[in-house]
Structure formats: structure tokens, C-alpha cells
């Protein structure tokens, strides 16, 4: 039985978890760094404790200090939120060792999905589609030719030591493969000191579509539909929506089934997200699994009316899911804008400071999850998300219009935010059409 929950996080997600705990009648403990002395999560929790100076390494990432805070306050559970230690298997295990419930999956589940190759192989075994490619490193041109013939062009040659988009070359036919294979090998050796390369199918016009999973400890797993997170800037999500503009009931069923199958294959419990990449022909492939609650869980809550944090805590308490897949209905359309303290006119550089004036939009179908207030000084040590602006409407068109209205209403003075970017995005014809891919923002120019 859980009575008191320590929230090992800060910002809006700490408030979100405190709210859910309060509604469930659970006591809460917040932890904070010295830089978060004036942060709202301190005020919202029943108890509050300072665990270190400003740096995350000394506070929100410091396992002994967090465990110590839980022990001295008598907290019997820890909710990790997202980021920081949320996907740290060691942390989950240490909590367990101290008889503190970790509200999330077990260490084994976190570690299994944390390693990308293991995760891919696990999903492949479970029958979840994964991006076709070589099973490991490709050493000869003949081996490469044979693999490419099997999976079909276009393909990508990837340096095993590369990352972040470096060491990748797209190959459209066998002639190009013969020409480029030795070049990519040599480049990989020169750039990364490792000539190892592998092959993966190149996904044209990719969309990022993820499925929300909810699983109890009794083997019941459901999916709560998809979230389209294709609007990204350098892998940083800026806008999320559900349903996806390209979704059909048939595709949702197929992808949802695959997501549930994947989660079941590792006996998953708690909330989780299975991320897929979807190509122009609506083929989908497993990318990775996030074994935690996500920033964009809110839009799923809006269309399903299921409180995900509450459900996450209840399944941790051992309760069975009180609904089946067929009971879950998706109603309307929801969009979330991540409002960051960043200057969109200066390459989205962080722009923290003191908020001198603040007004959040409101009205029918509007939700704002935020930890900022007028007079609040945003610390420079943590991430730049300051508010999540979420709208719900009966249709995508209505949701877009509602979001445009909200973006007109919002006032955040004293700092620079991504609001001007969002305003222009919601006027963009391509965005409104719903026909775009993950590269959309590469060519998006701010006026």
C-alpha cells in the first residue's frame, strides 16, 4: 500500500504528478535544488525538501540524495516523472532494495528497452515490424549487395560509430552501392576511428507516430491510440497531435496490436510508449520504446478521458485495469504545443529569465500544464519547457482554430518563447493539410 509519494522531478510534470496523487488521497513530497527555491512544485506538495545545489548531478540525478530524502520523509513510493532518472534501471532497482515502490517498470524492462539493439531484436522476435537491414556489421561489398537486394532500395549505409545524423549515406541503387561502399568505410574510419558500417532500409517521407501503452501487473495490456510527433526540430518534438492526420481505423488497429504485442513480449507493466516510424506507403517499423510517462501524454488523456498518471499509480498498487481494449473510445482531436523559453529567431537558443507578466489562455477545450507564474525566474540549469498548451476539439480543423485563438491570447513577457514559431506553424498550409514528414521543419522559415 502506498501512502506517501516522493516526486523525483521538477517543473510541470512534478505538478502533474502531485495533482494526481492528491486526487487519489496520497501524501506528496517534493524535492528541490537550491536553484528551484522559488519553484511551484515546492508549494504544491505536502512536504518539501532541499537536496542539493543547482546542478542536476547533485540533485535530480543524484540517486543517494533522492533515496535519502524518501527515507527521512517516510515516502514509500517514488514517481520519477520523465527525463532525469525516469529510464534509469539502476534507480528502479535501488528503490526496490530500500523497499520504496518505483512507480514505473522494473529494472529488467527498462534495461531491455534501453539498449537499442536488444530492444530491436526483442521486438523482432515478438513479431513487431522493425526497419529491415543487416543483422550486424557488413564487411564486404558482396554481402552488402545481397542484403540490399533482399530489403530493396533505397537503403542507408551507416557508420556504427556515427550518431546524430553523421556518418550516414543514402543509396538509391546497386551502382551507387558499389561506388559508395568503400568510400563510406574509409570516411567512417577517418571520422570515427572505426570503419564498421551496417545497412538499414531508408524510410522515405517518414512520420513519427507513437502508441501509448498501459499495462497492469496481471498481464492486461491496452493501447490508448497514437500520437503524431512528426513536427520535430533536431529530434526535439514541438507539436504533438492525436489522431494522426494520416491514421485510418485499420492502420490504428494494426499498429496498436503490434504495440500491445511488443509490450506483452516483455511482460511490461506501467505506462509506456512504443515509437514507430511510418513511411509514405504507411508501412510502420518499431523505433524504440519509452518506459515512462511522456511529455505529450496529455493529448491522449484529452481524447480518451483516461487520467494516465492516476492509472499508472493504480496499476503500481496492483489494481487490474478497469477497462478492456474495446472499452476505449477516441473522441475528437487534441493538439499540444510545447512552449519553451527559447528564441525561435536565434536558432531556438535557450532564453531563460524573469517572467514579468503572464496570462494563459482559457475557455472550452483548453488545458495548460505549466509551473511558471508572474515574477518567476526560470533557472538556467534545466530544460527549457515552460508550458504545455493543449487544446481539444471535435475535429482537427476546429482544434487548429482553437490553438490559433489560444496562441493569440497567451502573454508571457520578460523572456523569449517559441510562441511566434507556433503561431506561424498554425498558419502554414502544409501543416494544415497534414501532409508532411519529419523533415518538414528543415525548410520551415520564420517570417
Amino acid at each position, binding site marked *: 500500500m502506498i501512502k506517501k509519494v516522493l516526486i523525483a522531478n521538477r517543473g510541470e510534470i512534478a505538478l502533474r504528478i502531485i495533482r494526481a496523487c492528491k486526487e487519489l488521497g496520497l501524501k506528496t513530497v517534493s524535492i528541490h535544488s537550491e536553484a528551484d527555491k522559488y519553484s511551484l512544485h515546492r508549494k504544491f506538495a505536502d512536504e518539501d525538501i532541499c537536496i542539493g545545489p543547482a546542478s542536476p548531478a547533485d540533485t535530480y540525478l543524484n540517486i543517494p540524495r533522492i533515496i535519502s530524502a524518501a527515507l*527521512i520523509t517516510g515516502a514509500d513510493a517514488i514517481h520519477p516523472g520523465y527525463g532525469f532518472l525516469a529510464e534509469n534501471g539502476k534507480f528502479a532497482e535501488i528503490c526496490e532494495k530500500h523497499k520504496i515502490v518505483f512507480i514505473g517498470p522494473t529494472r529488467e524492462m527498462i534495461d531491455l528497452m534501453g539498449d537499442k539493439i536488444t530492444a530491436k531484436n526483442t521486438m523482432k522476435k515478438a513479431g513487431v515490424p522493425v526497419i529491415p537491414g543487416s543483422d550486424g556489421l557488413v564487411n564486404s561489398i558482396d554481402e552488402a549487395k545481397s542484403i540490399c537486394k533482399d530489403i530493396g532500395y533505397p537503403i542507408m549505409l551507416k557508420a556504427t560509430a556515427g550518431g546524430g545524423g553523421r556518418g550516414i549515406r543514402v543509396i538509391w541503387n546497386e551502382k551507387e552501392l558499389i561506388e559508395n561502399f568503400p568510400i563510406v568505410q574509409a570516411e567512417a574510419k577517418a571520422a570515427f576511428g572505426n570503419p564498421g558500417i551496417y545497412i538499414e532500409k531508408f524510410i522515405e517521407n517518414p512520420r513519427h507516430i507513437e502508441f501509448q501503452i498501459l499495462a497492469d501487473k496481471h498481464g492486461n495490456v491496452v493501447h490508448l491510440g497514437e500520437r503524431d510527433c512528426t513536427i520535430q526540430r533536431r529530434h526535439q518534438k514541438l507539436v504533438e497531435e492525436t489522431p494522426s492526420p494520416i491514421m485510418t481505423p485499420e492502420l490504428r488497429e494494426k499498429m496498436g496490436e503490434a504495440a500491445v504485442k511488443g509490450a506483452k513480449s516483455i511482460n511490461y507493466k506501467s505506462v509506456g510508449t512504443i515509437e514507430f516510424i511510418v513511411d509514405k506507403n504507411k508501412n510502420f517499423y518499431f523505433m524504440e520504446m519509452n518506459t515512462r510517462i511522456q511529455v505529450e501524454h496529455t493529448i491522449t488523456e484529452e481524447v480518451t478521458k483516461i487520467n494516465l498518471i492516476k492509472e499508472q499509480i493504480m496499476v503500481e498498487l496492483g489494481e487490474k485495469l478497469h477497462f478492456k481494449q474495446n472499452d476505449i473510445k477516441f473522441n475528437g482531436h487534441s493538439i499540444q504545443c510545447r512552449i519553451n523559453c527559447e528564441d525561435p529567431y536565434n536558432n531556438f537558443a535557450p532564453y531563460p529569465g524573469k517572467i514579468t507578466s503572464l496570462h494563459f489562455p482559457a475557455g472550452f477545450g483548453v488545458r495548460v500544464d505549466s509551473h511558471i507564474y508572474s515574477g518567476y525566474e526560470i533557472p538556467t540549469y534545466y530544460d527549457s519547457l515552460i508550458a504545455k498548451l493543449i487544446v481539444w476539439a471535435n475535429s482537427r480543423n476546429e482544434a487548429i482554430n482553437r490553438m490559433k485563438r489560444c496562441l493569440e491570447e497567451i502573454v508571457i513577457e520578460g523572456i523569449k518563447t517559441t510562441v511566434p514559431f507556433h503561431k506561424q506553424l498554425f498558419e502554414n498550409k502544409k501543416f494544415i493539410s497534414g501532409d508532411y514528414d519529419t523533415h518538414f521543419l528543415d525548410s520551415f522559415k520564420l517570417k
Partner: protein
Amino acid sequence: MNIEIVEYINELLKGTKIYEFTIERGDSKIQIKRNVSTNETQKESEIENKKEEIQVKEQEKIEEKRVTVCSPTVGIFYHGKTKLGPALVKLNSYVKKGSLLGVVYCVGTPENVVAPVSGTIVEILVSNRKPVEYNQPLFVIEKE
């Protein structure tokens, strides 16, 4: 009216803050109005201010001499070298800079609380075996 009475009353009022005095007997009435608000009260308030200034300066001197020792981490505070050890310092004991004052156990790992200056322990703010948060004041040392 006897001028001597007026002079006598005036003499009595010297050094007081009374600025108006009236006495009535039968038909006669003596009213004395004194100009005390300027010089005398001003002097007095100046003296008061100076006294306060001196007090503040003395307090500041004491404060300057006082150093607060705070917890280096979050955990349980022990007065001894170990969980069961005897208290390392008592009120009014003299400590040398760098000497151990106590420990804070953060999940089984002790972190030392060390005197940043030499001087006398004038306050012990947290009892033995009590939970403390990071940077919580534990001792006050008056520098020598």
C-alpha cells in the same frame, strides 16, 4: 498672579517633555506653553539614534564573528563521529578550523560536518539523529 509660581512651575518642567501645562484655581488660571519639541526632543532622539546605531554595530560585529555551519547533504544528522559515537562538541566548546563537528548520513554514507573556522560553538541547532535537508544550519561558531 504671582510670577514666582510661574517660574517655579517652569523650573519643575525643565528636562521633561511636557510642552503645555495648565493649572486652574477658582477664577485664576495659569497656562504655560513650552517650546520643547525642537531642541530637547531632537537631542534626545539623536541620542536614541546613536544608541541604536551602536547596538546595530555591536550586533553586526557579533554577526560578523558568527559563522553558520550547514549540512553538506540530505540525511540524518549525528553529533558523533559515527552513529553511536559520543557527541564531538558541546555548547561553548572551542573548535579548531577543520575539526569534525558531526556527520550527516545520506543512505549509509557519512558526510563530514567540518568547522570552517576556529572558535566557540555558540549554538547547536539540530538535535542528534534528526533528519536534515541540504544546507540546513547545524551549528553557529563564534570566531576567535
